[in-house]
């Protein structure tokens, strides 16, 4: 015991010492051979000393610190000065700042919808030539990713306006491995198996799912992820794309089927913890806690890769809690579709240093630095996935890299009045008892009034 605490002290002292030495850079360049340090060295050929790049994003707290740890390498190599500021009201602020004429050099958009809108109004600058091709060549499902950065500009022509960096995987089902062990459940490989497992848990007297749609003013959004995921598992990606642009109407039978499939999970009294009534009322942040109670309130929770921040303190991901891929129907032959989201970097000024920064995001090291820490997965094929900070991240990254189809969160792509309004409300109404047809018609009706 004594020896251990002593060695701990030494380790801490060493850590403190290294902290002083390499305050700026989390990982000493050249040291860990798993990183692509060569891409860091090439960065040094650029001299941007004294140039300032302002970046506005919605990352705050730990995410902000992580992003700054990546930016520090760009600063160290080129001498540029990056000033990042985060805001919870990012959307509002970027609109105000660009309209008023004091935009940041770079904005980090949490979803493409707003970026597309700013591009249309002429506030975004096209990215350097070749960026689009680079994404297509180097990202898994590169065509999909590239499409999310292409918008119509003020001139009416399409350009590449935003660079996707940092992805979120949404098609995940979280569970507690030991609870599965205790009950003797196996991880389902197909949607059919998942549904069978759901029924088996109910038959065993347990509750299979924790579903919470509550999110204050944004209540309803977790259900839109469910519907999108199921849409990709029932219909082709082309149908999905058509739906997002409303070429496939919201009240199309294909979509109603997806909503009803979500209803199979969420609108069956025995399937959800607390019963159907609590689905819309439970906060999405409180919802996963049901996995960890004694006895467990539920066995499974479908939510994106960020949700571990809301697990009880001290939960070790990979041991106390783990996830499996939200499986596809075996009889549909639609491959392994993955629903996700990502942040998009867009330029709002003609600052040449911004181009250099976007180019930096194309280098493996810009991804690896964050990968080696927490909360970051990337579809970039050129990185060394051994760098991932933990096995869980690597597993998520693999889902992204092996995706046969990748689709962006549809509600983020729809017009705000739908994707951040009618769709949310509609899903709340749906869990409240309305039929899928009624809800779909109501959402389509709202969509019809747009742009008139």
């Amino acid at each position, binding site marked *: 015991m004594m020896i251990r605490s002593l060695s701990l002290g030494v380790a801490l002292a060493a850590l403190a010492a290294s902290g002083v030495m390499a305050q700026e850079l989390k990982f000493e360049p050249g040291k860990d051979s798993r990183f692509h340090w060569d891409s860091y060295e090439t960065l040094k050929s650029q001299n941007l000393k004294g140039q300032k790049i302002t970046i506005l994003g919605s990352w705050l707290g730990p995410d902000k610190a992580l992003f700054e740890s990546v930016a520090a390498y760009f600063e160290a190599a080129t001498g540029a000065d990056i000033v990042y500021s985060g805001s919870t009201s990012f*959307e*509002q602020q970027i*609109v*105000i700042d660009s*309209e008023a004429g004091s935009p940041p050099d770079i904005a980090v958009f949490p979803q493409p*919808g*707003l970026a*597309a*809108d700013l591009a*249309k*109004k002429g506030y975004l600058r096209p990215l350097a030539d070749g960026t689009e091709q680079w994404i297509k060549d180097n990202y898994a499902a590169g065509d999909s990713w590239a499409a999310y950065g292409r918008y119509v500009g003020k001139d009416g022509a399409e350009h590449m306006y935003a660079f996707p960096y940092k992805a979120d995987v949404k098609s995940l089902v979280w569970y507690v491995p030991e609870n599965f062990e205790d009950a003797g459940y196996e991880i389902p490989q197909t949607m059919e198996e998942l549904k069978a497992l759901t029924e088996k848990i109910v038959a065993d007297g347990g509750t299979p799912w924790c579903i919470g749609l509550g999110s*204050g*003013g*944004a*209540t*309803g959004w977790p259900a839109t992820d469910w519907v999108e995921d199921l849409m990709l598992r029932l219909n082709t990606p082309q149908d999905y794309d058509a739906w997002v642009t409303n070429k496939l109407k919201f009240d199309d039978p294909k979509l109603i089927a997806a909503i009803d499939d979500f209803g199979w999970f969420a609108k069956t009294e025995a399937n959800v*913890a*607390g*019963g159907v*009534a*609590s689905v*819309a*009322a*439970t906060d999405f942040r409180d919802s996963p806690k049901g996995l960890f109670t004694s006895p467990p309130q539920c066995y499974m929770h479908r939510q994106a890769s960020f949700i571990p921040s809301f697990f009880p303190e001290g939960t070790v991901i990979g041991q106390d809690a783990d996830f499996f891929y939200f499986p596809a129907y075996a009889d549909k032959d639609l491959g392994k579709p993955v629903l996700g989201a990502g942040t998009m970097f867009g330029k709002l000024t003609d600052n040449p240093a911004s181009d250099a920064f976007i180019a930096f995001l194309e280098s493996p090291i810009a991804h690896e630095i964050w990968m080696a820490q927490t909360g970051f997965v990337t579809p970039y094929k050129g990185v060394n996935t051994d760098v991932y900070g933990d096995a869980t991240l690597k597993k998520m990254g693999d889902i992204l890299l092996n995706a046969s189809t990748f689709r962006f969160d549809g509600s983020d792509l729809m*017009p*705000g*009045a739908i*994707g*951040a*309004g009618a769709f*949310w*409300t509609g899903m*709340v109404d749906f869990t*409240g008892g309305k039929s899928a047809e009624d809800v779909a018609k109501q959402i389509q009706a709202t969509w019809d*009034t747009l742009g*008139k």
Partner: protein
Amino acid sequence: MEQILFGLTTIIVGVFGCAAWFWGSNFLLDAALPPRGPNAGRNITRASMIRPWLFLGPALVALGLYLVYPVFESLWRSLHDATGASWVGLANYRWLFSDPKFQESILNNLVWLLVVPSLSTFFGLIAAQVTDRIRWGNVAKSLIFMPMAISFVGAGVIWKFVYDFRAEGRDQIGLLNAIVQSLGGEPQTWLSIPFWNNFFLMAVLIWIQTGFAMVILSAALRGIPEETVEAAILDGANPWQLFFRIKVPQIWGTIAVVWTTITITVLKVFDIVFVMTNGQWGSQVLANFMYDWMFRGTPDYGRGSAIAIVIMALVTPIMVWNIRNARREMQ
């Protein structure tokens, strides 16, 4: 350190700048048109024509720049499309009046306008009256006033712990449901019960605004001349009569001011709805509706501005009433 110095200097410069303007301009006016000597009469008349504008000047400039100009800018934008590039005439307004969400917002706002100002003023009046008469009045006042000092984000959390919902049978962490459950009732999702959820949102604003009403009304109540009250007591008025027949009429003007101010706060109410329901489940109000169109998702500044103009139009009756009041006071 630099920051503090900079802050202090600017505070001093700012405050003295303002003071210097008022003092200096008045001094110059008096020097140019001295109220004595041969032309005293003419000078006084002229000076008293100019002086109000010296007093009003800075305020009018600031108001014009910071409020009037944006209003006209919005009026202009409300007649344009989302990008502000092309003229669309009244299309945004036509869209607005046919939009069901707008109709819902207007109706909700009317309910808010009826309930919140009256209850806040009523509770404020009661609070002012009772706290003025007890020994621990200052403590009581501070406690009732406290909600005003809490930011809206804080208020959002506070009321989460009141309205929170857990499925029946589980430990409730929301006070209201805990009470309901302990009385044998069924827990409710308060904020998603259509129509009634408006009242749960209103409760939050009433809770906040009562402190405001209390502070202003308490100042007015204490200002009622002693003689009036004593005379009424000698006439044998009981405490109720004293309060409602003597005191309330005396401070009627102040009550009207409080009422107006809270009414206007209600028209602008945004944070509470935004944080707690974001206008879902039929609880939309105009200001949040406007915010949705101005900044959320795919912003349409044209439509957002049109909603803003409607909000401002709603205040017209209050303006008219205030003009008449001001006219009456002048006589």
